[in-house]
């Protein structure tokens, strides 16, 4: 306790140096917190986009369909007027739901073919669950009758203009080839690569007819009040489904967003790089300050050794000083970081003007990027700053404490 107090008093000996070193640590911490906030913000946007455009809050489908869902199979489908769906909606008070039939096809413009996914959507309910309409670039949204909506990029790729007819070539469940001719009534620009390039939306009825799958759909989709409800609601739905001992199961958006989770992992790598930057900043600052202090206080170290302080007690003094600097730097960093993150979450940054409206890091962003809060990041980085300072000080402090007392006292 006495040595601790003395060490903290030492911090005031060279105030300028202490403050500069602490501020270097603060800077690293601010960079970390701001970048973490942006990553959280991006995650949030891309998760919301994914929910609005691809997954919805939760889906129900046949367990066997789930296993092969990437191939958009035509077996293990569901009836398009499942009683249990009505029961779920009533029991759990869910209003918004829709259903879709997916199948693989090739799109043809008379010269070339391109593999895509066709999505048969129920025209009057789809917009309750999905927000495709908001991203309509040209034309209008899907209506009943022989029409289709596709992504902007796919339209450009194939050279389709609005009003032209697109041709879809595919295999029915029986294995015979069939085609659909549909008028292109709208193009979407969602900046979601998958929708932009690979999705063709047609009315559910047309899809069912052409595939010979009347009354069948691949999955049901539900929109809830908020995404945080999806886990409890999914569990409740599953317990209803289990009661019926059916082969149908509900899956929430998290389970359906593996690619988004992969992106989160990438975000974590960016954070890791930030952490390494902080380690280097803090370590260089702390090592530097400890070495300077040792050189300045050689006589004092020698005298303390003469008084009977052991090597580890001298190391302790320098380590505590460094911990003090780490604490100071972390605290200031947290405060400035808090202000920075506050501004980021409330005002955001104008990414549209920076990137020219193009996709940013594969994440669909409309125009402004807002940061997000992750309180754990603040707690983590606070201790991280202190611990890094402490660890960085140990080696130079040992170097100082090892100095021969005689030489230290008479070093002149």
């Amino acid at each position, binding site marked *: 306790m*006495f040595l601790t107090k*003395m060490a903290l*008093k*030492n911090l*005031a*000996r060279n105030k300028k140096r202490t403050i500069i070193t602490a501020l270097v640590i603060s800077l690293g911490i601010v960079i970390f917190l701001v970048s973490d906030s942006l990553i959280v913000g991006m995650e949030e946007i891309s998760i919301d986009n994914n929910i609005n455009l691809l997954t919805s809050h939760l889906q129900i489908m046949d367990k066997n369909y789930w296993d092969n869902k990437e191939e958009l199979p035509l077996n293990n489908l569901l009836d398009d007027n499942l009683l249990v769906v009505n029961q779920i909606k009533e029991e759990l008070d869910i209003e918004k739901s829709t259903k879709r039939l997916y199948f693989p096809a090739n799109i043809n413009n008379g010269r070339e073919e391109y593999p895509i996914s066709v999505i048969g959507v129920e025209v009057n309910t789809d917009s309750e669950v999905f927000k495709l309409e908001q991203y309509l670039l040209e034309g209008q949204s899907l209506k009943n009758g022989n029409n289709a909506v596709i992504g902007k990029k796919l339209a450009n790729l194939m050279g389709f203009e609005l009003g032209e007819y697109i041709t879809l070539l595919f295999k029915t469940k029986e294995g015979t080839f069939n085609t659909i001719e549909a008028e292109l009534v709208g193009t979407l620009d969602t900046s979601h690569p998958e929708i932009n390039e690979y999705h063709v939306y047609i009315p559910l009825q047309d899809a069912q007819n052409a595939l010979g799958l009347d009354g069948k759909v691949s999955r049901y989709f539900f929109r809830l009040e908020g995404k945080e409800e999806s886990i409890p609601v999914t569990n409740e739905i599953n317990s209803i489904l289990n009661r019926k001992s059916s082969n149908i199961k509900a899956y929430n958006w998290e389970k359906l967003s593996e690619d988004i989770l992969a992106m989160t992992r990438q975000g974590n790598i960016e954070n890791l790089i930030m952490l390494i930057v902080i380690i280097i900043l803090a370590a260089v600052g702390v090592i530097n300050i400890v070495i300077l202090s040792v050189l300045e206080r050689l*006589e*004092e170290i020698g*005298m*303390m*050794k*003469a*008084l*009977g*302080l*052991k*090597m580890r*007690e001298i190391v302790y003094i320098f380590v505590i000083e460094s911990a003090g600097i780490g604490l100071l730097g972390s605290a200031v960093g947290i405060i400035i970081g808090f202000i920075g993150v506050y501004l980021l979450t409330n005002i955001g940054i104008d990414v549209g003007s920076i990137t020219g409206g193009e996709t940013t890091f594969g994440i669909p962003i409309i125009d402004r990027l807002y940061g997000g809060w992750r309180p754990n990041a603040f707690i983590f980085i606070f201790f991280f700053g202190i611990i890094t300072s402490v660890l960085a000080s140990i080696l130079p402090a040992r170097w100082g404490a090892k100095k*021969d*007392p*005689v030489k230290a*006292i*008479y070093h002149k």
Partner: protein
Amino acid sequence: MSLLKLENIKKIYQQGKIDVQAIRGISLEIKKSEFTTIFGPSGSGKTTLLNLIGCLDKPTSGEIYYDGSKKLSTLSKNELSDFRRYNLGFIFQGHNLIPVLTAFENVEFAIRIINEISKKERRKKVLDILKSVGLEGLEERRPNELSGGQKQRVAIARALVKNPKLVLADEPTANLDSETSEEVLDIMLKMNQKLGTTFIFSTHDPQVMRYARRLIEIRDGKVTQDKQGEDLDVPH
């Protein structure tokens, strides 16, 4: 009663390829409560000898015994630290004090790290010793607010506050003017008489010799004279 015994101590410093023989075979015995002056010109080996006695350095050969039996050569670094902490007091020429601590705290340091007595007793001890070296009222001053003589008195108080077996003072008056030197030596002598503390201090200043009760003169790392009592030709 013998407190300290040196047996044929030699110390050789390696300076590059040259061996410097700083101490060339010194044997002597110091009794409890003695007030010993080590006198010799600069470079004669006084500092080296005091550092060996104070276990800050190890002799190249020879043995140092405390209390008749304790061999210093057998102690580990940590044991030597503890030995210094509990038994020895040091007074150096300058840069003696910790600049961020007050006079009170500097003195307290020596018993703080021993941690044997309560806060209240500790406080009383520190105040008493500061008073007896004449620093009453200056307890809260930092070293940079004290004169050279006052700083040296704080150092004396710090060396004495733990009632050490032995106080080693390497040219404690070297940086002081003659008047202040006398003050400091008076206090050391007074404490020796009052507390019975054993003192060994070194000097190259003949002026200071008259404070000697036992005078050991060294030259080129050897004892050339060892006189006390009646044999001392300096007047008291």
